[in-house]
């Protein structure tokens, strides 16, 4: 029997906190008519959940993918029944039992669909000359529109310093949102997001003027770089285009050379912004030492990809987005089902991590966050720090809550701690202590 995921890993799959708390209520045998776990392949959990009607809901989870199915009417994904089943499993309360026929049918259906999709992909005809021409025309139009928008942004930035930035700390969101909206129209969503974020920088109190000028300045450098796009080395041009917000087709990413490794999923962060939820999975290659960021998006109520489970290892091929600093990636091929991860590595010192960060910024000046795995101790205080074995420290960002549970887990002894470095400090992702990876 495979080792069950822990409750943190299950919690990371929940689409929202209300689903998770509903699932906790369902994670008791009294709520189930029957349930079982089968080794597979694929590893499967199944259960018949008591619902409000007379017929129980059929819930099953493919643990290898992972994938979920439930006959309940919920549009959440995975639904509370699937989560409840997983929680029971993680608590050791799902007995081994062979799959009922409805579970086998589901597996068969999915296998059939996957085969068909594979066949469709294989059959795709190469583009006709006309289609290629039309695509090139669309791309050229977009480039024109973006170029116009970026030039306008450069003007707007210059206007800010001409008029003086004093007072912008009280300018309100409107000031930034209007400029951001124009960039959306100009199909430069990356720039739009950065301009929108300036509102928060401007209202960040003490020292806001320094931070705002720094951001306006780096943004102005981005507009300058875009104006010289044709002269830039290909890698760097891709970096600039990426930050401006040109779309990169999945096919283009998949066409890059894959990097195979045992990828350790050391952090999963969800960020809810208006109606859009962004899930960031931070991966670290055990053998290559490379870091990767896999993004997933969902609008409110929609299913978030939940296939990268915190604290597991995945032997897979990753393809990286083009650019000078390859960080963002997609999983192209999985070689095995995810396995529970051990102590993540390779870990570095603070100095080593900062030096790699400097290299990364040199290659991509607009890099916003950079993952680190450091062997060290967390020290609470007015400002928290991560201190490595050499006594070198980095400030830790605690705006989202102080990770006291990690202090308790590590008991003041050095542990591999992963985090994401940003100008205002290291955002802690997880720590490995007491034989498990603990999420911040």
């Amino acid at each position, binding site marked *: 029997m495979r080792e069950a995921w822990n409750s943190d890993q299950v919690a990371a799959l929940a689409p929202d906190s209300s689903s998770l708390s509903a699932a906790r209520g369902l994670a008791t045998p009294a709520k189930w008519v029957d349930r079982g776990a089968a080794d597979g392949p694929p590893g499967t959990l199944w259960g018949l959940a008591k619902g409000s009607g007379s017929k129980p809901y059929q819930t099953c989870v493919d643990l290898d993918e992972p994938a979920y199915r439930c006959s309940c009417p919920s549009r959440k994904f995975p639904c509370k029944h699937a989560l409840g089943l997983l929680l029971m499993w*993680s608590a050791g309360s799902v007995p081994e039992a062979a799959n009922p026929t409805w579970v086998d049918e589901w597996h068969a259906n999915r296998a059939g669909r996957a085969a068909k999709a594979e066949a469709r992909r294989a059959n795709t005809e190469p583009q006709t000359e006309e289609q290629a021409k039309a695509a090139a025309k669309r791309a050229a139009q977009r480039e024109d529109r973006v170029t116009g928008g970026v030039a306008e942004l450069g003007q707007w930035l210059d206007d800010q310093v001409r008029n003086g930035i004093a007072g912008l700390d009280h300018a309100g969101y409107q000031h930034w949102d209007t400029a951001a909206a124009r960039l959306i129209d100009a199909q430069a969503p990356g720039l739009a997001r950065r301009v929108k974020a300036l509102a928060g920088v401007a209202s960040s109190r003490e020292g806001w003027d320094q931070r705002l000028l720094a951001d306006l300045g780096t943004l102005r*450098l981005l507009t300058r770089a875009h104006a010289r796009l044709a002269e830039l080395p290909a890698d760097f041009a891709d970096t600039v285009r990426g930050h401006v917000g040109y779309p990169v087709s999945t096919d283009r990413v998949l066409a890059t050379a894959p990097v195979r490794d045992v990828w350790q999923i050391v952090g999963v962060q969800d960020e809810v912004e208006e109606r859009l939820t962004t899930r960031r999975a931070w991966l670290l290659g055990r053998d290559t030492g490379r870091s990767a960021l896999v993004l997933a998006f969902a609008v409110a109520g929609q299913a978030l990809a939940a296939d990268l489970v915190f604290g597991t290892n995945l032997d897979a091929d990753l393809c990286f987005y083009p650019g000078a600093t390859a960080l963002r990636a997609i999983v192209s091929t999985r070689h095995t089902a995810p396995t529970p991860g051990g102590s993540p590595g390779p870990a570095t010192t603070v100095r080593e991590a900062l030096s790699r960060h400097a290299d990364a910024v040199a290659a991509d000046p607009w890099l916003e966050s950079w993952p680190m795995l450091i062997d060290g101790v967390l020290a609470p205080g007015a400002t928290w720090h991560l201190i490595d074995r050499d006594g070198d420290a980095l400030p830790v960002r605690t705006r989202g809550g102080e990770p006291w549970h990690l202090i308790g887990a590590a008991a003041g002894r050095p542990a591999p701690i992963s985090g994401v470095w940003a100008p205002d400090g290291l955002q802690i992702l997880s720590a490995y202590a007491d034989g498990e990876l603990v999420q911040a």
Partner: protein
Amino acid sequence: MTAALWPQLVSTALVGTQRRAAATITVPEAMASLASGGIASDADLLETAGALALARRAGVGVTTDVTSPVPSAADDLPLAPTAAQRRLRLLLGTSVDADLVELWLTLAVERGLGVPGRDLANLFRLGRANERLRDLIAQVAGVRGAWLAAQHKDWVWVGTRRAATIDVDDPAMWTEGAIADRVAYLTTARRRDPAEALSSLTRVWSAEPPAERIAMMAALRVGLGPGDEEFLEAALDDRRKEVRTAAAELLGALPGSAYERRMAARAAALVSRTGKKLVVTLPEECDAAMKRDGVEPKPRSGTGERAWWFEQIVAAAPMSTWDGLDATPGELATLKVADDFGPTLRRAWATAAVRTRDAIWAEAMLAAGFGTGSKASYVDIELATSLHRVLPADQAVDTALARLAMSGTQVAHATAIVDICPRPWPRPLTTALFGFIETELRGARNSYVPYQLRELGQAVVNAAPPGDVAADTAALAASLADLSPHITTLMESLVTLADTRYQILQEFA
């Protein structure tokens, strides 16, 4: 020497280049490569600022002046089994059920087990809001928990609870401390040497402000003895009513005091027995001596003033007063009382029995059905549960069984029984409580389940031994299955709760 570049950039950007031209910025030689053509335009200013910001971002240095925390000593408690650890983590998730956490902690403490380090902080946060869980949490915290709690200002209680009782014996606390510190010091001193502590108090008493005098009276309850009587008699003449009331209460708790004799004499004159009947004579007035002894002249609303004086006198008199009536407490509790004074007399006796913690009287009053039936007032029901608390553990269970079998027992009393009876409960008590719930549910006038009964059900399931309660709850649910949808829903939630508790127990096996 030229001024540093960055401050010039910031100050120029703040006022705006239309007021202060960008060209006025001087670029230090070392920075020349950042702005090779000088700073002539707004774009130059921004790009130079951007380049400088990037240089700083890439060149962030390590901090070297932070000292590493001292690590925790080796753990002293073995951890709870893996399944139990997982359970705790589930329990500490979003909506915390403090009763389930209490069960978990109790099982862990009984077995001398600890919790994983990662869960300590969540437990401490829970303990901050739930006073009653603190002792248990402090016990499962272990060395590592104490180490962790010492680093957080909100978790100081973990350390203090771990050291079973704390003594405050720094004399500076007495001379310079805040009220709470001074009371703590005085309490510790009373535990050690009541007479010495009293003389410390008398030395400063007259100079103390009223608020401090009121607070310090509480410390005298510790080590109360005949040596305190003179001081307390004098305190009956204090300027503040709170001090006078506290003094009267303490004197009432001091066997053989003059105060007690005065109250006994007053009370004895008011109740007499003729054959199988008790006769009550109400006092004519509330004189100065009565007022000095703490009798409140103004009655609470709905009570006549003479009946009110009577009730206070009987409640303050020692139980030995009634030996003169030549009957056992059991007999007195059931005798008829002339002129409808029965409820008043019995309420006063109940109050006195609670005050003096007299188990014989408490038992007699409860056996006589005090606080049962539809006429029982809210005060009577409260008093009945207080009487029940006076009983020693084994007697409390027998009395509980008797009360539950009695007709007219109130749901509130049954709920009180849940925490009065010491745990683990004997099987018959669990059965009797379930029987009580069943009778109440079947007797409900409409199909709704009264809120009180829902609470009682949860309290019983939370308090009974998990092994007994799972089977009992399921049996009751089956027997009540077709009564009403509301009852079915209630029973479903109780069955789930009972199952969960049973699983938690199993996980410690």
